[in-house]
């Protein structure tokens, strides 16, 4: 455990040194080395905990409220540490080359980057409410500064503010949550809260606050408004870190709440399943309507958080209904998807970063044909795309299969609840999966395939080795987890001890069963790679295999095709966006065609976020209108301010003297 804290300390120290160093290259290198070393040190206790050992927590005395400052690592924390420890060093490595050596000094960027990494690790180990909130805030603020990296652009500043306000609305809910929890259990230590959990009265209210507060960070619909703003604005390695791992702290928070309160009623399970389905479907539908590659990926985070939440909801229902198969497969699928999503979403954000680095734009409609010049970026992006769409033979399929399997396992319980759950889960997962395939066909197909639509896309260059290495590693892990599917049952079993350990479930049967099933799945995956290769090579043996000619694409006899005639991303997604038009409310603007032989016309669509426009904008406008009269108090007149101070002092004096 001391190693973990030492690692975090090292990262903070590395960030401070980077701030002090004048040379950008040295600053980047220091920050990188400290992140790598810190994560390597932290990995030792994490692996030890996951392999079944228990570690003594570090207890420090501090002056606050008589409680102890405890840092500990249980299996749940250790599992969540895994993606953090993998993604952070890779993102740092990528960022070093992505940022390059601009005129501006990068020290402050690296300080906040290292602070973010360290605060996320500390958050997972903090076992004291006060410390939890402190590192939660450090995490929020440092990521705010990272989003604001390109603050000279107005849209980045706007995105930063949206994020800062959203995350603090969440924090307010968490402060109330922890205040109620602390006052009802008379303890601010997690251990103390668990010991006194019988004294909790307002369980329902606590869960509403927790789901709201942690949901803002995780990105539940409609609390997700900051994601599609902040992720595109941030530098790509920061988006990868935020979308891949930081939003998972919200999921961690909800799971931690469940272990703290120990409340696993069916209502909570249903609530989580419904929230998950809504987030999942709306996330992918909004992703379909986007033109900006990183904005599209941000909406997919909402979708995947939805899938994770469905899994967790199924697990909670499993506890409520006393069905070990649902507990194991639901929680297992949700947790594994946390890890998988971290891998492929970071991969996709890094790929998007390479595209924007190479072309200077992220507008899907302006790209095309990048595969020919960015081979490595394109093929790794393709693996990420197939994985996130839940397609075999990659890791996304494995975690979604867990949740599907949980759904159908419940059918055998022969009570109506699990069957209705199965119908909900299977239909929504199939719909989300189908739409995700559509969305990533669009994202990959329009950006990387066909012909370059603009000169920007034609003059692209491949990313350098330092940017490609993290992408190749992540793609490799996506493939590997697919092939090692049977072993994942051991990986997800560890955190289950913390989540459902006290309920006395026996998972041996279902674990064995799942491992057998995944044995077959992995076997099929292995054969898939081999036979595909055989079919591909067998074509070379045919009689006329070496007679290959090239020509233009078939264009129905048209004489002069141009790259602009290709299908666009908007047209590709149009049938589906039309299907969901009542949800999307896409704004279309077009000019009327004039005359018999019109030379010019234009058409423009924009899909603003329905939650932002429909829910939050009116609320904030209302608040603004109500409190704007108070502005008169801030008139800039110095004597007026002196009067305020005098009045305040007199009021305080009367108050103190009167009682």
């Amino acid at each position: 455990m001391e190693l973990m804290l030492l690692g975090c300390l090292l990262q903070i120290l590395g960030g401070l040194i980077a701030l002090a160093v004048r040379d950008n290259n040295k600053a980047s290198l220091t920050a990188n080395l400290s992140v790598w070393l810190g994560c390597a040190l932290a990995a030792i206790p994490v692996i030890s905990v996951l392999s079944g050992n228990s570690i003594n927590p570090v207890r420090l005395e501090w002056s606050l409220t008589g409680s102890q400052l405890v840092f500990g690592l249980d299996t749940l924390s250790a599992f969540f540490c895994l993606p953090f420890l993998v993604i952070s060093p890779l993102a740092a490595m990528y960022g070093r080359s992505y940022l390059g050596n601009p005129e501006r000094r990068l020290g402050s960027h690296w300080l906040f980057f290292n602070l973010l990494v360290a605060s996320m690790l500390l958050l997972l180990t903090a076992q004291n409410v006060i410390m939890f909130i402190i590192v939660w805030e450090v995490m929020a603020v440092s990521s705010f500064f990272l989003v604001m990296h390109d603050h000279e652009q107005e849209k980045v500043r706007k995105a930063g503010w949206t994020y800062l306000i959203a995350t603090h609305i969440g924090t307010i809910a968490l402060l109330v949550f922890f205040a109620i929890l602390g006052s009802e259990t008379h303890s601010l230590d997690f251990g103390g809260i668990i010991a006194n959990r019988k004294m909790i009265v307002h369980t329902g209210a606590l869960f509403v606050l927790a789901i709201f507060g942690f949901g803002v960070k995780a990105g539940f619909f409609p609390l997700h408004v900051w994601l599609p703003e902040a992720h595109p604005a941030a530098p790509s390695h920061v988006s990868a870190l935020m979308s891949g791992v930081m939003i998972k702290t919200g999921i961690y928070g909800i799971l931690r709440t469940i272990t703290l309160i120990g409340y696993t009623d069916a209502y909570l399970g249903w609530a989580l399943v419904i929230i998950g389905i809504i987030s999942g479907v709306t996330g992918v539908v909004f992703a379909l309507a986007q033109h900006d590659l990183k904005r599209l990926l941000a909406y997919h985070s909402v979708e995947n958080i939805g899938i994770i939440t469905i899994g967790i909801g199924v697990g909670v229902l499993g506890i409520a209904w006393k069905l070990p198969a649902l507990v194991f497969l639901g929680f297992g699928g949700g947790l594994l998807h946390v890890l998988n999503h971290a891998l492929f979403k970071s991969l996709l954000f890094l790929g998007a970063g390479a595209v924007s680095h190479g072309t200077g734009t992220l507008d899907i409609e302006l790209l095309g044909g990048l595969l020919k010049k960015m081979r490595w970026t394109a093929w790794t992006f393709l693996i990420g795309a197939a994985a996130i769409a839940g397609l075999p033979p990659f890791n996304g399929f494995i975690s979604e299969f867990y949740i599907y399997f949980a759904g159908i396992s419940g059918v055998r319980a022969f009570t109506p609840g699990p069957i209705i759950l199965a119908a909900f889960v299977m239909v929504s997962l199939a719909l989300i999966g189908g739409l995700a395939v559509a969305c990533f066909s669009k994202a990959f197909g329009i950006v990387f395939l066909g012909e370059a639509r603009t000169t920007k896309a034609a003059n692209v260059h491949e990313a350098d080795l330092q940017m490609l290495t993290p992408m190749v590693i992540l793609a490799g892990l996506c493939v590997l987890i697919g092939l090692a599917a049977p072993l994942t049952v051991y990986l997800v079993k560890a955190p289950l001890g913390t989540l459902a350990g006290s309920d006395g479930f026996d998972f041996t049967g279902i674990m064995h069963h799942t491992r057998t099933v995944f044995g077959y799945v992995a076997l099929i995956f292995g054969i898939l790679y081999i036979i595909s290769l055989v079919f591909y090579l067998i074509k070379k043996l045919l009689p006329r295999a070496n007679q290959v000619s090239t020509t233009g694409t078939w264009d129905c006899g048209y004489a002069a095709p141009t790259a602009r005639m290709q299908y666009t991303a908007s047209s590709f997604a149009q049938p589906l966006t039309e299907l969901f038009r009542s949800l999307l409310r896409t704004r279309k603007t077009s000019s009327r065609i004039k005359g018999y032989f019109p030379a010019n016309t234009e058409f423009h669509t924009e899909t603003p976020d329905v939650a932002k426009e429909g829910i939050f904008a009116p609320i904030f406008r209302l608040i603004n209108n109500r409190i704007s009269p108070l502005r008169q108090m801030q008139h800039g007149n110095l004597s007026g301010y002196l009067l305020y101070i005098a009045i305040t002092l007199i009021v305080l004096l009367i108050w103190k003297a009167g009682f």
Partner: protein
Amino acid sequence: MHLISWLFPLSALLLAPLLSGIINRVKAYFAGRKGPSILQLYYDLFKLMHKSSVYSRSTSLVIRLAPAVILTCLVLACLILPWGGFPAPVSFAGDFILLIYLLGLARFATVLAALDTGSAFEGMGASREVQFSAVAEPSLLLGFLVLIMHTGSLGLAGIASGITIVDWQIAAPLLVLVAFAWFFIMLAENSRMPVDDPNTHLELTMIHEVMVLDYSSADFALIQYGAALKLWIFGGLLVNLIIPVKFDVVWLQAVTFLGGMFLISLLIGITESITARLKLLNVPKVLVSAGAFSLIALIIKLVESYQ
């Protein structure tokens, strides 16, 4: 795992191209023509294998790799498909999910290869394909859920052997609803009338055929063969559902299953001959209706079980 169970996927690989021969003969009969030979697709495949290849300048490795990936997915799906009372070589709980997702991977590869050519027509077809399948998949899974509930089995093998004559006597409405839903999904997924016209000659109106415009030689043979296998897989799922006679004698079961496949081809041929094509905008509505059929079946089952 019996050695004999490998015989079934093997014969599926051999016999699949026959289905389109039968369908075309039925259509020819209705149109008063003589029609092509029942073995026409075999001749076509053989001929294509001996042609030299042409690739578009716009394409990359994606279109060269796609036919192999697509065909692999479909061959693997054949390994999972049971024949009536006989389990498939690979069968496990939840195998139908893998089967559906293998078809999904095949579709992803088809769509990407279409976009690889940069053709507006192929983009159009790809766009329609992803739209229809996104709506069809939930309907297909709902049907499976009904059958899982009915048979109490989580794998295809149990589902296929679990639907017997007795079930058709006591739960006919349920099974008919699912069978109707699946029949329509089969037509949609295999680009048959009334969703897509395999004989159309206008690129603008096609779905599947337009996505494969730029293939030639061996690649096109793999694609055509893959399409035949896909029809076989969907037909097989339906045969397991609607032919309630299950045997544990190999040759009896094989004959019954093949008879069922023949029946399905006849049905498709007749449907294609007597229906007109739907407006493209109406296809999702019909697919959602297919889902509604399965949902009604699910509700009937729930009400019946827990009154």
